[in-house]
């Protein structure tokens, strides 16, 4: 498949630009600090003692400072939702960059791990050099207390080991496998970040590396009182020059003050404020208005909360204290509150049955929308008290900002688009969107009943209002069954087998020449990868497909 430059720039350009800027910032910081320590006058004696290990360790430390401060920013979800929604950032390109906030967080995290390894290795070499090149000329400069001592029981050493251990725990539990199978391990270890940052800020107390404070009075390399110019190079020096090169003072050394707090405190305060704000916002418990059972083990929860406003495509985070005080699970909203109706709803997939007996019945609920494998036990009776945090923004909010949109849903991934369809049902005229293509791929026929009524209602409404071409629906299943009679609009649009994406995109491209079509995919990785590749490929009709993915954990 030939990649078209225009499509590639439209889809990948922004992301890669940000990546280049970030890499450039890291490289510049590394080189600047390296050169400072290798050529700076105030580090002359230290550099002579420790060699390049000093420069590498300090340069990697400054890169670590930068990344530790940047890593928190993409996780300020309320702030990002506000930026996305308020249209203060008016360009759609910039809003699409916000979709990649988690990727940026991961990139900074990986950089932290890599540079930690570099930093620790360089400091190990420094410790050895401190012991081997013990300086008798400048005893204040030494870390070791006597020649040959390998000293590691000082504050930077001990805090460094603790930091690496916490980073190790956080990193090993954040791999894709562990997140998908045991989200709790990931969540609890990742919340150790606060301990990490506190220890990081005291890491440099009692600094081991010192700089020289009196460079004018004692230029590095000057002659000491007990040396004479004639020893140097055996040349005849004039009296005046000899005087000039003599040190007026002994060298004074001072350790650096910890500087990490300058980098880190801003984003850390911002993130803590955000978490506090989210906690306050989610303090009101929600009232559950209805629970509706759907086929294929799906239940719909309709809830009511004061001052809750959401846009189509956003998601909320649910917390059930009867189950666990600290666990929060995200769900995409399937119904948003409007002026007429204040309830909002989510769809949950239920695994297992109501078990247990007596007063409390327990139900295993397998969560839909974000990660299909996380389990939450719900207590049926009194502790159906839920706390809702959010709403948070997601890429699917942009459906209404294109002229033509294609929404591709795989199975339960239809939930963000259900909200979009509800919004269309309320009033489709006010949006920029002129045409919506909707492709829903399911394994079983029964899954379509989750939103069959909604789809038919939208279809009928648009037919009555004389816009039959606004909503183009295609349903795909892999089994050969027939839908019920009352869903006739769906039966005639039901196709057996997997969709052929290339033909579908070609058909859409032919009917929408020279337009920008927004492609929104919420489904398994196979579908999203194929669609992404097709969106980047060349097209003769001049249509550009902009790919937006709703990610599953």
């Amino acid at each position, binding site marked *: 498949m030939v990649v078209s430059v225009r499509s590639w720039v439209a889809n990948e350009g922004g992301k890669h630009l940000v990546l280049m800027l970030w890499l450039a910032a890291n490289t510049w910081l590394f080189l600047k600090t390296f050169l400072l320590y290798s050529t700076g006058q105030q580090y002359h004696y230290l550099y002579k003692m420790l060699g390049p290990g000093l420069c590498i360790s300090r340069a990697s430390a400054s890169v670590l400072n930068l990344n530790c401060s940047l890593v928190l920013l993409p996780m300020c979800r309320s702030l990002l939702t506000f930026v996305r929604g308020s249209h203060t950032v008016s360009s759609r390109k910039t809003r699409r960059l916000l979709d990649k906030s988690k990727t940026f967080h991961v990139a900074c995290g990986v950089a932290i791990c890599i540079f930690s390894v570099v930093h620790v*290795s360089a400091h190990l070499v420094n410790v050895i050099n401190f012991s081997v090149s013990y300086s008798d000329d400048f005893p204040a400069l030494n870390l070791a207390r006597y020649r040959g001592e*390998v000293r590691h029981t000082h504050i930077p050493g001990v805090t460094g080991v603790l930091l690496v251990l916490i980073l190790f725990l956080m990193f*090993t539990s954040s791999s894709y*496998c562990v997140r998908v199978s*045991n989200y709790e391990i990931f969540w609890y270890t990742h919340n150790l970040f606060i301990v990490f940052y506190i220890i990081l800020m005291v890491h440099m107390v009692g600094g081991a590396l010192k700089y020289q404070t009196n460079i004018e009075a004692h230029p590095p390399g000057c002659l000491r009182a007990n040396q004479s110019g004639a020893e140097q190079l055996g040349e005849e020096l004039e009296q005046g020059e000899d005087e000039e090169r003599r040190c007026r003072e002994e060298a004074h050394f001072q350790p650096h003050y910890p500087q990490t707090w300058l980098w880190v405190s801003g984003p850390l305060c911002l993130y803590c404020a955000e978490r506090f704000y989210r906690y306050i916002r989610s303090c009101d418990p929600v009232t559950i208005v209805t629970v509706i059972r759907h086929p294929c083990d799906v239940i719909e929860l309709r809830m009511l909360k004061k001052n809750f406003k959401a846009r189509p495509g956003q998601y909320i985070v649910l917390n059930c204290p009867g189950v666990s005080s600290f666990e929060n699970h995200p769900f995409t909203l399937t119904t948003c509150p409007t002026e007429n109706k204040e309830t909002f709803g989510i769809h949950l997939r239920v695994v297992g049955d109501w078990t247990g007996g007596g007063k409390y019945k327990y139900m295993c609920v397998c969560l839909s929308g974000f990660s299909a494998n*996380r389990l939450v036990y719900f207590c049926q009776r009194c502790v159906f008290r839920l706390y809702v945090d959010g709403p948070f923004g997601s890429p699917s909010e942009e459906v209404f900002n294109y002229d033509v949109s294609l929404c591709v849903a795989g199975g339960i991934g239809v939930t963000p688009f259900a909200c979009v369809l509800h919004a269309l049902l309320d009033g489709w005229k006010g949006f920029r969107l002129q045409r919506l293509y909707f492709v829903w791929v399911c394994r079983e026929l029964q899954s379509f009943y989750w939103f069959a009524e909604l789809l038919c209602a939208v*279809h009928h409404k648009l037919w009555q209002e004389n816009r039959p071409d606004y909503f183009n629906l295609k349903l795909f299943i892999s089994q*050969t069954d027939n839908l019920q009679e009352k869903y006739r609009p769906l039966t005639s649009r039901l196709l057996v087998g997997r969709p052929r994406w290339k033909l579908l995109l070609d058909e859409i491209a032919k009917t929408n020449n020279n337009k920008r079509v927004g492609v929104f995919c919420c489904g398994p990785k196979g579908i999203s990868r194929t669609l992404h590749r097709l969106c980047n490929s060349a097209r003769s009709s001049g249509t550009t497909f902009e790919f937006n993915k709703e990610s599953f954990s």
Partner: protein
Amino acid sequence: MGKIEWAMWANEQALASGLILLTGGIVGVAGQFRGWQFAAYAVAAGVFVCLLEYPRSKRSKGTSVERTGQYCFTVCVKSFGPLTRNYYVRAFLHAAICVPGGFMLATVLGCVCLGIASIIYFVAAIRGEHWEPILPRKESRMPVAESIKNPPQNPPPRPPAETRRKRVDDLEDAAYDNPISVTDN
């Protein structure tokens, strides 16, 4: 909390510890630290731990994702039978391997990390988990759908002959005559 598979986390940790041990050992040997023999041991131990931990185990419930190219490692590790299947053996093995790393500054981190991984493996073993190889499954061919083999016997239904006949006397009206009514389905 549900059923957490501790072994999966322990596997990630052990692999990472192996790499940390390896890196620490390389630094120790390259810098010719005092006690560099421990560093040389750490290099060998790190490589061994990485090779042992690279193949992921099959999950008891749910889909297992293998690491790239892990099939040959799976075959090697499987051939040791109960020694590699049992997580008690792994826990004690890792605990034993990590001890010599604690004698040298460069490898002490690898030692501590491997120790943590060994503890988690112990917890996994107590909960009765064991290592299962992920072997490729033979794909069964999907049976061809029945509808292909039975083409329709009758032609599609058509309206009766009177409505089908061409209305030559009234050509203008005939152009817009639909024999079947239009509905919104």
